[in-house]
């Protein structure tokens, strides 16, 4: 008995070891270092001293917190759009079409993930550009005379963000819808519920855990994304990640970059916390 208990302990530590290594070296230490460096500012002598300067800089420079607010607002909007686009897809795949078709369509949905975000973003540039596929097509059939300016706008940025994140809403919603027994829908129908009632009172509340976890993933992906805002949004659509990037790699102000990174982390955590509170969902339930 004693022996087997010891064996169990050794196995336990062996299994937990990689996780601990990962947590400490990849998450705790880098974040701690970022946190420390975000409170450091170079003084006149070029020496690093403790200061709130990086954070004060953020609140006094209008461009910074305007970008910050815009990033938050657009991320929320893209998350909502992702829900609107993904929910009918998830519903169709789980409840309407046959299992065989669903498998095939699922592969189609997954293909953009296989080629990576950069390629899909370039794909959208080809589609949306002034000389791109869409404008060319519309001009050929004579609906428009001049190309519509779609690329390098908020519109193209939202399209790109939506495209790369939507699937992460589809999958968790699908998994909750799969467990939704059709007899619940029939029961609601039997009790006199209209189609709208069934949707709002049965289907949406039932799939709320899936919607919430999908929303968290999409929101995190979007608010922390760099490629789509940078390549599709152009100069007019500043994203907060671009400010962080600029600090680290263009002005080489790593301390301010660290501070901005922390602000972004707090922003996304804060919004998710608020959204969970408002929707009455619990994080541990969402994860399950």
């Amino acid at each position, binding site marked *: 008995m004693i022996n087997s208990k010891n064996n169990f302990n050794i196995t336990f530590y062996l299994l937990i070891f990689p996780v601990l290594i990962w947590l400490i070296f990849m998450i705790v230490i880098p974040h701690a270092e970022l946190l420390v460096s975000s409170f450091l500012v170079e003084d006149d002598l070029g020496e690093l001293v403790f200061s709130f300067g990086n954070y004060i800089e953020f609140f006094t420079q209008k461009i910074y917190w305007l970008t910050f607010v815009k990033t938050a607002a657009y991320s929320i909007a893209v998350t909502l759009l992702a829900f609107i686009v993904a929910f009918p897809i998830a519903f169709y795949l789980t409840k309407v079409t046959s299992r065989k078709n669903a498998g095939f369509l699922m592969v189609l949905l997954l293909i953009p993930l296989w080629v990576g975000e950069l390629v899909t973003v370039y794909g959208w540039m080809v589609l949306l550009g002034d000389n791109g596929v869409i404008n060319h097509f519309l001009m050929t059939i004579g609906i428009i005379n001049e190309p519509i300016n779609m690329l390098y706008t908020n519109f193209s940025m939202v399209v790109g963000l939506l495209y790369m994140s939507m699937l992460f809403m589809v999958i968790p919603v699908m998994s909750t819808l799969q467990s939704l027994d059709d007899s619940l829908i029939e029961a609601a129908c039997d*009790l006199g*519920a209209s189609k709208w009632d069934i949707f709002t009172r049965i289907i949406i509340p*039932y799939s709320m855990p899936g919607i919430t976890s999908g929303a968290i993933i999409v929101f995190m992906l979007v608010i922390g994304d760099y490629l789509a805002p940078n390549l599709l949004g152009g100069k007019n659509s500043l994203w907060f990640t671009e400010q962080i990037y600029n600090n680290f790699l263009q002005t080489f102000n790593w301390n301010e970059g660290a501070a901005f990174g922390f602000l972004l982390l707090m922003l996304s955590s804060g919004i998710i916390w608020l959204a969970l509170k408002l929707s009455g969902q619990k994080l541990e339930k969402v994860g399950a």
Partner: protein
Amino acid sequence: MSNILEVKNLSKHFDDFTAVKNVNFTVEEGGFFSILGSSGCGKTTLLRIIAGFQQESEGDVIIRGQSMKGIPPEKRPVNIVFQNLALFPMMNVRENVAFGLKRQKLKKAAINAKVNEMLERVGLHGYENKKVTDLSGGQRQRVAIARSLVMNPSILLLDEPLGALDRKLREHMKVELKLLQKEIGTTFIYITHDQSEALVMSDKVAVMHDGQFEQIDTPRNLYKNPKTAFVAGFVGDTNRFELQSTAGDSMITQGGWTLQRPEHNNSAKELYIRPEALILNPANNLNDIVQFDVTIKTILFDGSNTKLSTMVNASNEELLISLPQNAQFDGIEEGHSLNIGVHLNDLKCF
């Protein structure tokens, strides 16, 4: 009493088979009507057609004199209790029961009054705010019934709602359901594969086989006077013998047992005898009795349901006999030979 439901020449065809074949029946107002059949006999399809979830291929469903053709389930005066109950897991007991009333846009006070009354009636007073996932099987059952009954339907359809319960609770719910039906007076149509449920609760039982009704009768008649071989074999325990020939007044079983024949039915292929129709050591002065000897193989003790597994001496065919649990038969043991009698009327030939 008037008929609340009339089903006329109802058929349902699927691509490659027919689930319901030309079914006709009526249900009286306030009655408890059961449809009894093994799984796959088409009883669920029939129920779903009455509820409006499936379209009949031919025929008509008439409720209170009104044809239900083209009327969607939410507009029909029937409610259904689903096999798996289909309670809404994200709502508590009160919200589940109030769901239908809320769709009718009733005033909040009226809804609350009705919900409270119904919960009281099914014995769930005080459970209003419990989550349905925290309830026991029997309580969930009652929530499902309350949720349908609160809509005050003309007919309540029940799709094997006791199937998921354990045996003891099922016995208890059977009685409770019958009492509830008597008390509120709503017409129940109950489908089940469990003959005991159907016999105990119903005023009338329809035995369904292969998409057709074999017999519609009171439970007693169904048991005592089955009209077809299927009913004789399906309802209740019975002994079945295949007949190799019938000639004149006698018939011969497959094993070679020759015995007297009750009526001149020359085409009879099968003989059914209920275990409790067999008389142990019959008196010699009884009329119309067929007598024969058996040898006891084993005693299957099961309280008041104890049976003897015996062999007919004439043919070595097996025969189950009910053994009354009184002192008279205490001496019976394996290997003994017994004289058995059976009334001619209790020999059912088809």
